[in-house]
């Protein structure tokens, strides 16, 4: 539903149901390579995926590196993505490295939002 917005990246063939990180999940490490990772509940860790959605009401602390990121919840930590969408319920504390940033009215962001990608994101473009 949330992802129905214009995504440039068409999901690769055989795309499956997204991963959900829900409940009280703490990842002491990195999540790699999921096509779509959705965050519900309270999650801590580092996520490196193609598409990341932080759902409304969700709470995430850590680092997000992705091709596209959509945030409707609370995120504390740096976000790096080609395309970043902040929904009106979003609240982000931390830098947002982006190529394209869409901020819906009401979204809160504390931090820098430089128009350039973090070097980390280079490996995602392949």
């Amino acid at each position: 539903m949330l992802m129905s917005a214009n995504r440039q990246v068409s999901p690769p063939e055989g795309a499956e149901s997204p991963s959900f990180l829900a409940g009280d999940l703490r990842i002491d490490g990195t999540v790699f390579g999921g096509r779509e990772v959705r965050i519900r509940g309270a999650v801590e860790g580092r996520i490196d995926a193609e598409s990341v959605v932080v759902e409304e009401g969700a709470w995430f602390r850590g680092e997000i590196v992705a091709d596209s990121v959509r945030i409707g919840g609370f995120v504390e930590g740096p976000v790096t993505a080609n395309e970043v969408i902040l929904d009106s319920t979003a609240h982000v504390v931390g830098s947002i490295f982006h190529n394209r940033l869409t901020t819906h009215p009401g979204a809160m962001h504390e931090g820098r939002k430089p128009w350039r990608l973090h070097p980390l994101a280079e490996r995602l473009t392949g």
Partner: protein
Amino acid sequence: MFAKAEKLDQPKPKETPVSQPVTKFAAPNPNSTPSIISSDLKIVGDVESAGDVQINGLIEGDVHSRSLTIGEEAHVKGAIVADEVTISGAVTGQVKAANVTIAKTAKVVGDVFHKSLSIEAGATMEGRLSQAEFDKAGGKSTVTDLGAARAGFGAPNKGSDTPIAGD
């Protein structure tokens, strides 16, 4: 901070909302939605959850959860500590859980510490099976190690619900 807040009757700077979502979201009902690690996902590091976790992907690290389901395509390389765990996929590492269910598609390499255990016919199991006392909530266990020799292949298969080692 609180004492000052009474004196300074001015609106707070924008730092206040930082703590607000934490209290709002930090304790969502953990039982509502399970975490699903789908098959295209790989996690390097330890995973800790107070709720239910379903793993279909690859995890290199320890998993600590209340309830854990390991799907057929999943592979967990690391120790598992949970209240209850259902294994249908591959596990390389120690398994510690009060209730352990090993399905026929499972491939477990490692010792299993359990309170009650069921192994379905066809499961691959390499390691020792030990009955252990569990305090509660997937916590630390006191291994009595009485079933150490009971390990191995050819577990009695009288149905998936037959516990091998009773209480």
